[in-house]
């Protein structure tokens, strides 16, 4: 009996999700034994035409990581959707837009202008924008077009399962693959991570006080972080309360606050808004001056609250009115 076919693809991605599959370590061998990987650009030499040649729905599953923000990515995503029985949005970028999603604070024009024309690191030469088509010696070279916005996978095609995480942890990846192979799958559209916030499994939960009140917010580089105490109690913005668990609280164990990569629970429509709501409600300030002074401790609210989830937030898009994208300013 032929082994089930699997494809892995990356869109606007850092490559970490592909690493995560490799990180299954010994587990990867089990995977390789059980399936036929027919397309994995980062690791194997199959071409797009190989995918096109497959029959529709002949792939058991495609693990697709990265957000969609170019014409090529959209084309590939649609192709893989056609060819796959199950399409899994793998990793935060595919699920929620991920860090590349922060580009949605700016217009395409602002991005291109800054990167190719105005960045301080540019020399005098080479201030030219990439062309959709360039001709050289009678040959025509093409580049994909950058979309106006970064989109999540499910804003382009229908998605069957979501594996959140930046990247998804080995245990969850293993479990997902197991489920796909055994055919014992939850309802389509399920997020394959526990539907409860990270605090539930956090090793520091007991040290969190019942009357936490924020007079100040601090950032990790501004302090020596106590290795035992709840990070919120130390004034750091830890997104744990607003983020799904299942990752084993690895960041916390590394003495760093959670940044929200597993996304919100199913009961929340906008992770950033809920995190904002909870943190601010528990602030100590009682008048505008005191409140604003405390809020100055979060100098990049969009980057803090929507680090992974801007493309799937309620307002979803951003329009930048600043002359240069603010994330480049330290």
């Amino acid at each position, binding site marked *: 009996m032929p082994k089930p076919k699997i494809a892995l693809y990356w869109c606007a991605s850092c490559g970490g999700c592909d690493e995560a599959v490799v990180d299954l370590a010994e587990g990867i061998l089990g995977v390789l034994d059980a399936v036929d990987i027919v397309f994995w650009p980062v690791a194997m030499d199959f071409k797009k035409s190989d995918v096109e040649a497959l029959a529709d729905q002949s792939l058991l599953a495609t693990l697709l990581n990265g957000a969609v923000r170019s014409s090529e990515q959209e084309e590939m995503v649609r192709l893989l959707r056609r060819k796959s029985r199950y399409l899994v949005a793998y990793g935060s970028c595919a699920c929620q837009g991920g860090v590349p999603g922060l580009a949605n604070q700016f217009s395409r024009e602002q991005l291109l202008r800054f990167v190719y024309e105005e960045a301080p690191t540019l020399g005098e030469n080479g201030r030219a924008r990439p062309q959709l088509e360039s001709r050289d010696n009678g040959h025509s070279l093409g580049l994909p077009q950058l979309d106006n916005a970064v989109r999540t996978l499910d804003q382009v095609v229908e998605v069957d399962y979501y594996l959140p995480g930046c990247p998804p942890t080995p245990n969850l990846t293993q479990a997902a693959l197991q489920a796909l192979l055994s055919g014992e799958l939850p309802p389509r559209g399920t997020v394959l991570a526990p539907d409860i916030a990270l605090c*539930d499994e956090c090793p520091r939960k007991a040290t969190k006080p019942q009357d936490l009140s924020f007079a100040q917010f601090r950032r990790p580089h501004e302090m020596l972080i106590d290795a035992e105490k709840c990070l919120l109690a130390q004034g750091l913005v830890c997104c744990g*309360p607003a983020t799904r668990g299942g990752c084993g609280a690895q960041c916390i164990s590394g003495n760093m606050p959670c940044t929200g990569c597993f996304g919100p*629970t199913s009961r929340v*429509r906008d992770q950033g808004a809920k995190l904002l709501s909870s943190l601010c409600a528990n602030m100590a300030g009682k008048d505008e001056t005191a409140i604003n002074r405390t809020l100055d401790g979060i100098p990049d609210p969009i980057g803090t609250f929507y680090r992974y989830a801007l493309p799937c937030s309620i307002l979803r898009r951003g329009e930048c009115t600043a002359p240069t994208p603010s994330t480049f300013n330290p």
Partner: protein
Amino acid sequence: MNSNGTNGDIRIGFYICHCGHNIEGMVDCAAVARDIAKLPGVAVSRDYKYMCSEPGQELIQTDIREHALNRVVVASCSPLLHEHTFRNAVEAGGLNRFFFQMVNIREHDSWVHTDRAAATAKAIALARAAVRRVRFHRALETTRVPIHPDVLVVGGGITGIHAALTLANGGKKVFLVEREPSIGGHMAKFDKTFPTLDCAACILTPKMSAVRAHENINLWTNSEVVKVEGYVGNYTVTVKRRPRYVNEELCVGCQECIAACVFKEPKFPDEFNVGLGKRKPIYIPFPQAVPQVVLIDRERCLHFKTGKCKKTCVEACADRHAIDFTQKEELVQVRVGNIIVATGFKLFDAKRIPQYGYGRYPNVVTSIELERLVTSSGPTGGEVLLRDGTHPKSVAFILCVGSRDFKTNRWCSRTCCMHSMKLAQLVREHTDAEVTVFYLDIRAPGKGCEEFYDKSLKDGIRFVRGRVAEVTDWALREEEEGKLVIRAEDTLAGVVRRIPVDMIVLAVGMEPQADAQDVRRLFNMSCGTEGWFLEKHPKLAPVSTFTDGVFIAGCCQGPKDIPDSIAQAGAAAAEAMALIDRGYIEQEPNTAYIDQADCSGCKSCLPLCPYTAIAFDEATKKAAINATLCKGCGTCVAACPSGSIRQHLFEDEEIFSEIEGVLTHA
């Protein structure tokens, strides 16, 4: 039928009320009904003249039966007025009362807009929102909160006294807290009351004595409420009992200590006589004070100020040992189920109208000062005297001082016309003086009052209609020398007049107490624009407030005379008794709740609840909400970062659907 109240199929009955012309005059009700009829799930869509009437309510009930409705939406007036009415109607029709949503298209639409098309479009948007929302409603039950049978009455004037006695006679235990050292309030300062010219003390003091004697009343004078916690049926009130330096249990009111005081003569201004009389540092507020106990003014007592006093007062009280300089302020806590606030009023400060000369000319007095002069137990023994001790030959009353005035207070203080005429008659009884009343209008409602006005006219009291411009002592003619001249337009005669008089009485208006804002926060009440405590509804609920279990009565709710104050005192007592005798209050089930499977134990909600309704269970490591303590504000619901706290009646889906709905129609 599942908890959704359906077998899967939502069937909504929509009703839009014309409210006579009130809504139909600006909103095309038929058009709204037609629009809503097209929405999915709407089984019935009607417009009707008066939904809150009997036939209107029956219409709903009939439709529930005949059309198998499982949701009802009524677009009419404010839910604050009739939500309860319609919920009752829905329940009588056999449906859970919370499968109902109301749309406010009168107070928020037809009454405030002038363009019929825009008002109709708005009504449609709001109605669509409600129709979407009501689908998510679930069957809920009201909870019953038990009512503690004791009552707190704040304020020991005639209103507080009457409320306390009514409740006590009904078998309820009452804590009556009064800031001053004696109960009696403003009425204790009056000589006679209008229109009957009853002696105020004669009708008041028996009630005051009854308060002291009543086994069901705990009387705490020289005390104030400093903290109120809890909610209807279960208030915990902290009362600060200020020291009198005299033991109330031991003092019998013989007043030997006052006679023995090292101050041989009274030297200090006497509060009860509004500064016209004098008292010693050890004193009794007035002869009929209740409790009949002296007190020591710490600021003026030689012992407290210098430590070097012979303490003759202590000697005089040798056999009872009632004087106790070591007394300290005490904080006492009581538990009550209801609170009646009857803190009264203060009088307008006449110095704010400098052209009337109060504070500059010694013979310009306020009505309350004149009241003390005419009282036989007052500082002049009932003689109406000028400052130089002679009798006035002419007295003028200026009405509406600090009332009906754009520059000071805009309201009518309701009692001053009658009060002034009463004083005018008393002045005529006590002296031969000519009396003139300068008025804008004479307001004499109430039984016997118009007749009183008639009698005043027949008795030769003069009335000049016109707002007094100023009081001056600059004489222009000989007959004005040494007198105070009133300049006023006599509007009926059509001339400006100068009228010289010996004494002028300013009918100062009523104002909210100086600390009204602090007091109302203490009891979780609101104030109206004018500063009086806000009643729940000006016509239908004048003694209730928006906080269940807190009632208001008397002048703290707005200016009124003694009969109306007593009526409100009785009303408030009756409202409280109704709650107590029923034994419970039905709590709106808009409480928050946590699904234990969802909660991660992040503790973000715990600090947010002002009622400590959320507790952390160390065993399960999760939070849980006590539904009896929860008051339904929803703050924790909005805050929960994993969406694990929800609120009955205000579920996220319900609100999101309303938002979607109001935006469907341009």
